[in-house]
């Protein structure tokens, strides 16, 4: 357990930015899987306890140029693998908005830093919901940008075809303003695009939703807890009162989303995490046997249980004889889900659902049942599979616990989700 309040930070630090800029005077928490030159970047793992990057992630460079002060490297589930921030090798983070409950994850430290007032803003990363889930659980705003809008250079990869860096903030406008700073193409990331680069996202937080059509995918509402559904329905009523038209839409393929997501994410993780073999990272030396045995021992020692589980399953899913059964099928499912979203956006400007089907878990509650925990990602992972933008905004409470509402937009449709979310504030 670290020293910081709520154990929100793995490392507290002060990295000063430029003297002026749009974020001058603002403090920012940066998730600990985003590289900071000269400041250790652990990814919540013992494997990287001593890893100090010699370079800044592009988003960190942009924060500095915008005048922000980075105040800490935020705690997270180990390598982003978790949705409660309990798999961190540096101890769990507490939820400032719901004492005794998890802050969500994997960007739990980032959300807690904002909710607990330790930082004005935060950067998180979202592979299958890792920004939106903790935003919902901690009662703050979080945006998962369209894949390709924000540079991943310097983001330590978990599942590189799925993840994006994105903002967390107390309000939609502040989150959008932070997105304005970090968005845009980067020569170091071949997957970034020109589209959406010069947009003024903060300006879209005007609450003007008159005439907007919001689609509600029945599949993403049915499975939610009673209390969460009630809060969600009340938020929809609020929107309708402001001139929004709501329509039911269907995303039939999302029933495969959780399975497809985990197969793809774990497969990519098995490859992305292969470099941590004990030679340059983690504990090494002194092992008997050949280098394969030495690598195995270093990995056994350096990785936590959830990481090992996902690396093993991912390796299995990519193996000869299983590749077609798992990995190839998951890619097919990914394509169908993208198609379903395309069809839904023919009928609606944005889609709305509860961000999480449940309120925040009690600490320790979910650790013994990984499958149940994976299923709670049902509403967030389809968005990553479809490379789309989504935002989570506080929609109210159930039994005193925060409930988040998720708006999903078409590719590079960040304006629309920012506008819709701002109408709920």
């Amino acid at each position, binding site marked *: 357990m670290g020293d910081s309040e709520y154990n929100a930070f793995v490392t507290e630090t002060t990295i000063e930015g430029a003297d002026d800029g749009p974020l001058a005077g603002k403090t920012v928490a940066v998730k600990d899987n985003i590289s900071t030159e000269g400041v250790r970047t652990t990814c919540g793992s013992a494997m990287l306890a001593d890893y100090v990057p010699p370079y800044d992630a592009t988003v960190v460079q942009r924060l500095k140029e915008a005048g922000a002060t980075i105040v800490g490297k935020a705690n997270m589930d180990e390598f982003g693998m978790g949705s409660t921030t309990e798999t961190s090798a540096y101890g769990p983070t507490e939820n400032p908005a719901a004492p005794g409950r998890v802050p969500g994850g994997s960007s739990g430290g980032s959300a807690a830093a904002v909710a607990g007032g330790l930082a004005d803003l935060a950067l998180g990363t979202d592979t299958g919901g890792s920004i939106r889930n903790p935003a919902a659980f901690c009662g703050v705003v979080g945006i998962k940008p369209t894949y390709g809008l924000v540079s991943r250079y310097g983001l330590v990869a978990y599942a590189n075809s799925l993840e994006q860096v994105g903002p967390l903030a107390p309000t939609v406008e502040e989150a959008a303003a932070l997105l304005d700073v970090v968005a845009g193409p980067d020569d170091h990331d071949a997957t970034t695009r020109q589209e959406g680069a010069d947009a003024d996202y903060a300006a879209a937080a005007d609450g003007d939703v008159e005439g907007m059509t919001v689609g509600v995918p029945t599949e993403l509402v049915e499975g939610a807890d009673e209390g969460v559904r009630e809060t969600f329905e009340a938020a929809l009523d609020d929107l309708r009162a402001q001139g929004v038209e709501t329509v039911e839409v269907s995303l039939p393929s999302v029933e495969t989303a959780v399975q497809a997501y985990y197969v793809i994410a774990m497969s990519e993780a098995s*490859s992305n995490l292969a470099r941590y073999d004990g030679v340059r990272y983690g504990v090494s030396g002194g092992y008997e046997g050949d280098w394969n045995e030495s690598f195995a021992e270093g990995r056994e020692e350096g990785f936590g249980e959830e990481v090992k589980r996902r690396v093993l399953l991912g390796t299995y899913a990519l193996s000869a004889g299983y590749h077609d059964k798992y990995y190839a099928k998951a890619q097919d499912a990914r394509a169908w889900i993208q198609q379903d979203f395309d069809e839904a956006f023919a009928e609606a400007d944005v889609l709305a659902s509860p961000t999480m089907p449940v309120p925040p878990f009690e600490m320790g509650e979910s650790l013994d049942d990984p499958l149940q925990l994976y299923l709670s990602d049902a509403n967030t992972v389809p968005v990553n599979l479809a490379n789309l933008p989504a935002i989570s905004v506080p929609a109210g409470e159930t039994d005193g616990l925060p409930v988040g509402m998720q708006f999903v937009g078409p590719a590079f449709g960040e304006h629309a989700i920012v506008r819709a979310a701002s109408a709920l504030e």
Partner: protein
Amino acid sequence: MTAQTTQARDLAVVIGLEVHVQLETATKLFCGCSTDTADSEPNTHTCPTCLGLPGALPVVNEAAVEAAVKVGKALDADIPEETRFHRKNYYYPDLPKNFQVTQYDEPICQDGSLEVAVADERRTIGIERAHLEEDPGSLKHEGGAIDRAEYTMVDYNRAGMPLMEIVTDPDFRSPTEVRAFLEKLEEVLEYLGVFDAERDGSLRIDANLSVVDAEEVAEDGTIPTDVLADANRTEVKNISSHKGAAKALSYEETRQKNAVRRGRAVEQETRHWDESRGITVSMRSKEEEKDYRYFAEADLPPMRVSGWKEEIAIPELPDARRERFREEYDLSAEEASKLTSTKQVADFYEALTDEFDAGFAASWVVDRLLGELNYRDRSVGSVDRAAFVRLLELVDSDDITVKNAEEVVLRAMLDDGSDPDAVVEAEGLGKTSGDAVEEAVEEAIADNPDAVEDYHDGEGGALNFLVGQVMQSTGGSAEPGAVNELLREKLDS
């Protein structure tokens, strides 16, 4: 089958190659690090990307893709609409990420071929595919060979160098053909300007070799696929030159044929070519089927290259240039072939044709210069062009004899870097003028009455003796033909 029956069998060898070629680009395949690593300290040409640091991402160097397209065009290969990269996952200490970014089922070149001359036969070798990939780092074992080393150090200077892996069909029927192919391939790559043979490790070869019943080989060299599939093959690794390939594969051919003739099975295994001992060594055959768990590299979006094939031009290739030389400069097949053996020689020669008669220049380059260079194990790149041009001028204007030009001046130029005019001056090689020759001839006649008498008696040797006398007194600077003629004239008058 019994040992007796196998002994009588005629066996044929079947070889296929995987050739790794380092492409000449200014920077590495996926980052901006310089590829000019010769004489550099270890780990000085590195950055977060080629070190595989957490969070670093690859970005494709378009120059490498362009080079690959050129190779594809030269190999007459199909270049697809779109090409992409995959990850090849395996653990090895020289691999910074423990996966290699390479190309899998969408390579940049497929179904090409290269025509090779072997003795008098022209053979077409099929190219199954050619793809781009990053080079791993290099390992340095301290305190002995890999199995005895005390520890091993890693140098990442090489990590991320652009490689092209060229995979041939199993079309070779002898190690000689392999050598001819590799020489031709190097030549083509040099012509394209994408390859530097001088660079250490620029060519690395893995070869698959098996033996089959000679009866199975059809007239045109083809072998039924089921016969090929049934034959156990060995993969010979660690070959780094075309000479090495011929040696390694001859060794392996003999080893396999001997095994089969003795009634033993050839084991399917990987063997290591030990250049210093001249043998192949088994790398332990406990070889599980390798599973590289290939999947698409999401950090590099697919590249549309359909338009590139038209847009990217390639220079005239050796075969075309050879034919053009024959026609344009009226050269023999042998001359044209020697003059186009490397781009360097061809360029050197072709520039001479601006100033000199093409046939004259050809005979000087082919018959004299290349011979002298070959003897000194040097390339035409080491020749002072201006000096060579001056030498030809001296010969062309009849200022020195061909014999002196070659045996004295050219050799001094090559050995000491001497200036041709200075050599002529110092050695007194300037052609002796007509008057001086005439004087010497008259002197020889006056001084050798016996020889003159013998000449008139019809003894053939006498004239040669007199020519020798004249040559001696002029220090070899007279033309023997002219002396001969002048002597006859004087003696017969």
